[in-house]
């Protein structure tokens, strides 16, 4: 071959001289330059043939091509895969290399008839070789995957990815592998908690073989075919992986029509799948692609995009469908999960999809992530609507806790477990301008929360009007207000709303307490007040009358208010104490006054029904609720 190579060079030099030299003298000069440049281009070898056909060089070309034809056709027609034998494959590759080099070297002289004819034969050979190599490439891709499948079944394919991505119970996994008969061997492996894994979908040797083929195909301008075969195979693999992750292809409408429970399950699966895809599958694909197309960056990027495009769009479409779906408040928590998943995967999107072909996938991911933020804001808006539209259907017995209070407060508390995420979501929507100085005192989320609390309170205010008794109305407000403050105080909500808010609302509860006392006990206290005319002659009768009135009022209050509810034990105790303190001193002094009047004092037992202990006992009987149903139990 060495001699052939030299012939080739000589022919090239002569060709250059012939084309560039406009006359023999110039051509001769050029040849002189060549001969000075390198001893191999000696004048004897070159000059004698100037200006005439060179049968020796052409004969060498003929010979080369003939030899290559012989070698290559032996591989092209082989019945068995060539890459099972590394000697065969490497000599096939050598032949291809020589063919590529021959074509490259002789193409400048294609204008020459003989050379042109040879080149046509060479191109013909090239096409046959490339078709064969393409088939071998595909076979390697498929076989490589299969052999790994095999090694997986033996259980200990360390880095080969013995994974089922499934943290759910084993029954389901087993069920699945039984469904598709052939795949019975799919192991249901240990669940993944650590995403820091790279799967080598193909054995290292196969990857090298693929790389060697890819190099030749690209060099022979068959890069498009190569990349196409590569991406179709890998795309199939990815789709297969996705279906193993039990991810369905769903249209937006299907997602919208899905029952929420089913959608919740789907979201769970999606979160797992998105993590597996972005943290394991895509980076592994990237690595594989970069290794197969090593040194062929453009082919690598394009192929990688083709592999991942469909799966990525499938993933993103689902998140998008969730974002576009219903704004029912119960959905908040799952949508937060989806939002957080995408947010946390952003660095992966950035790193995996950073090249020019994939950039659009990354941008799509950002758009849809933002859209999920909007969906979350939409849910809060819907919550506001629900609160302010909630009608006052009937009074809660005993002025107890209204279900809406409990619902909203527990909802907000649960929501605030994702406080940082929510802050991020609401910060997005807020104007960036105001309040840079007192940032922590009123974040967008605090404003949002304060607004919801305001809506809740005004709704409760409206609901309280349903009670005819103003005292009961106050008890209702007190109960709900107390509940709100309690739920705020010991949670993230408290941090958001601030101490000032808590103070203000504590004061409101006290205000309701005062209102209660006033509207329910003032009448009684009025009776006990000493009047200035106590020295009047009919004092005994008046006191008797008052005593009777007091007993009547007191009994009425005790009767009705024992059915009332103060859900909070401490508040109930506090209320009883303050009522006792309010009532007992004036009562005792009233009783003292009565005892000073002989007509009454003589018959204390009969006239004065309640002693101090009795009053206290009766007051301690207040707010027990009706059979402990509505608010009697300690609520949490």
């Amino acid at each position, binding site marked *: 071959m060495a001699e052939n190579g030299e012939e080739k060079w000589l022919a090239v030099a002569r060709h250059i001289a012939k084309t560039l030299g406009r006359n023999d003298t110039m051509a001769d000069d050029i040849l002189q330059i060549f001969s000075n440049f390198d001893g191999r281009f000696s004048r004897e070898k070159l000059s004698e043939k100037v200006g005439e056909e060179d049968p020796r060089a052409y004969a060498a070309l003929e010979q080369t091509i003939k030899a290559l034809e012989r070698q290559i056709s032996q591989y092209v027609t082989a019945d068995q895969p060539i890459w099972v034998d590394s000697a065969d494959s490497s000599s096939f590759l050598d032949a291809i290399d020589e063919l590529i080099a021959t074509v490259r070297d002789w193409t400048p002289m294609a204008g020459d008839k003989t050379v042109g004819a040879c080149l046509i034969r060479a191109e013909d050979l090239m096409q046959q070789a490339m078709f064969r190599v393409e088939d071998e490439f595909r076979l390697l891709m498929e076989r490589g995957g299969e052999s790994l499948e095999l090694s997986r079944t033996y259980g200990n394919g360390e880095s080969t990815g013995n994974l089922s991505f499934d943290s759910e119970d084993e029954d389901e996994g087993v069920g699945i592998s039984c469904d598709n008969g052939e795949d019975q061997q799919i192991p249901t492996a240990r669940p993944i908690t650590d995403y820091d894994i790279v799967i080598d979908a193909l054995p290292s040797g196969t990857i090298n073989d693929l790389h060697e083929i890819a190099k030749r195909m690209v060099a022979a301008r068959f890069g498009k075919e190569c990349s196409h075969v590569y991406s179709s195979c890998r*795309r199939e693999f990815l789709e297969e992986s996705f279906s193993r992750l039990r991810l369905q292809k769903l249209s937006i409408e299907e997602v919208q029509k899905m029952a929420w429970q089913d959608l919740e399950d789907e979201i769970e699966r999606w979160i797992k799948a998105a993590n597996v895809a972005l943290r394991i599958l895509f980076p592994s694909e990237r690595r594989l692609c970069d290794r197969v197309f090593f040194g062929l960056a453009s082919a690598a990027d394009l192929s990688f995009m083709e592999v991942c495009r469909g799966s990525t769009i499938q993933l993103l479409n689902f998140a998008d469908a969730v974002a576009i779906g219903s704004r029912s408040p119960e959905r908040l928590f799952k949508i937060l999960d989806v939002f957080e998943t995408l947010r946390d995967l952003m660095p992966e999107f950035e790193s995996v999809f950073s090249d020019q072909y994939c950039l659009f996938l990354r941008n799509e991911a950002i758009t849809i992530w933002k859209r999920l933020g909007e969906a979350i804001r939409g849910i809060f808006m819907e919550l506001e609507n629900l609160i302010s539209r909630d009608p006052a259907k009937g009074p809660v017995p005993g002025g107890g806790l209204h279900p809406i209070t409990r619902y909203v407060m527990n909802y907000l508390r649960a929501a605030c477990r994702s406080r940082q995420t929510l802050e991020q979501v609401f910060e997005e929507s807020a104007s960036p301008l105001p309040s840079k100085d007192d940032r922590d005192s009123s974040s967008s989320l605090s404003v949002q929360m304060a607004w919801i609390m305001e809506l809740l309170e005004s709704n409760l205010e409206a609901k309280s009007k349903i009670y005819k008794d103003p005292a009961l109305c106050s008890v209702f407000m007190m109960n709900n207000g107390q509940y709100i403050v309690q739920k705020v105080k010991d949670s993230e909500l408290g941090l958001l709303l601030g101490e000032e808010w808590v103070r203000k609302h504590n004061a409101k509860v006290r205000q309701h307490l005062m209102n209660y006392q006033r509207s329910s006990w003032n009448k009684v206290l009025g009776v006990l007040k000493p009047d200035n005319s106590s020295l009047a002659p009919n004092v005994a009768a008046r006191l008797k009358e008052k005593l009777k009135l007091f007993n009547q009022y007191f009994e009425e209050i005790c009767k009705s208010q024992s059915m009332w509810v103060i859900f909070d034990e401490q508040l109930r105790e506090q209320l009883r104490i303050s009522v006792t303190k309010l009532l007992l001193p004036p009562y005792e002094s009233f009783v003292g006054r009565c005892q000073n009047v002989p007509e009454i004092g003589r018959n204390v037992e009969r006239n004065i029904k309640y002693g101090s202990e009795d009053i206290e006992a009766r007051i301690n009987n207040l707010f027990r609720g009706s059979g402990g149903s509505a608010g009697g139990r300690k609520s949490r």
Partner: protein
Amino acid sequence: MPATDYQGSTAGFPSFGRSVFSFQRDQVHSMDAANNNHDSGAGNLEVDLDAFQRQVANRFHDLWSSASASSTPEGLLSVGWVRKLLDAFLCCQEEFRAVLFNHKAVVFRHPVDRMVSDYFERSVKALDVCNAIRDGIEQIRQWHKLLEIVRCALDNQRSLGEGQFRRAKKALIDLAIGMLDEKDYNTTVAHRNRSFGRNNPSAGRDHRHLGHFRSLSWSVSRTWSAARQLQAIGNNLAAPRANEVVATNGIALAVFTMNSVLLFVMWALVAAIPCQDRGLQVHFSIPRNFSWGLPMLSLHERIMEESKRRDRKNVCGLLLEIHQIEKCSRVMSELTDSVQFPLTEEKDVEVRQRVNELSQVCEAIKDGLDPLERQVREVFHRIVRSRTEGLDYLGRANHSE
């Protein structure tokens, strides 16, 4: 392979989000104020509604005239025309949105609110069409790639031999299979195996790879149907009755108009671009008494005619460029079948001329698809955005009742 930056479109969102906050604080106020302004706003409303109708009519007249002038780059069902159609949709939608949000007090109240939310529901159905169309564009891109292989095989070579033609032919056959309708697929693959067996020892051996150029799958479930989706968009769509028009201060007409535009645009997209279970037999009731009615009807008729033409009956999309791909690949196939080697000079010239034509088709597709896909995405985003906005207002309007 669009390296699209959608920052632009997302940047539009915060402005509306901001308004939510300012709105919340003095919401009761603004609702009352809106009520008081009701009468003074009505005059403007009429002007706005007229402008909207005019806009829609202009756009459709324009679409009709470019469709009729055959030699423009925006001839009926060309990529250029479809882009113009999408442009028209975006503009109409924008104007419609402006009408809605400039007259919130009337719009987001009974009885208009129900019509508006009906429109939003229909437009959500269009989102799935947009996604399917995006898949379809990707499909065309795959065909384009095969065509590029043909070009690569036969272009820019000093001498053309059998090898190059065989390479081109393989790509052409893959292309032909790729462009088949789902139903015809299986029968033809068998045929391909037979016809491609000779000269290529490996082709007969490996049947599996024949399906590879087809393996691009849709991103929706197998049961999804573009035809059914179109039907759902058009379901119960009827021109408003006179009393409805009066009761809604004429807004009912605008809503109906926008619904019709939505349906037509989605229908035309499905007509033009491959997607799962295409079907054009959607009930259209376009009343002629709208200024946009006639051009829309005429376009509808023209596209229906186009779909019934003998050579276009079984195609996977009426897009002009798809037709060109087909034509081109047919011509090339005939050529590759008929050539004798060595090539005569005459034949050589002809081949080069054909390859030249093919290159032009390739270029047109290459340049057209990316912007088209971006635009389809933009339609998607706009629909979502205006629906989100609408839902916000609808929610709040109820809220202050």
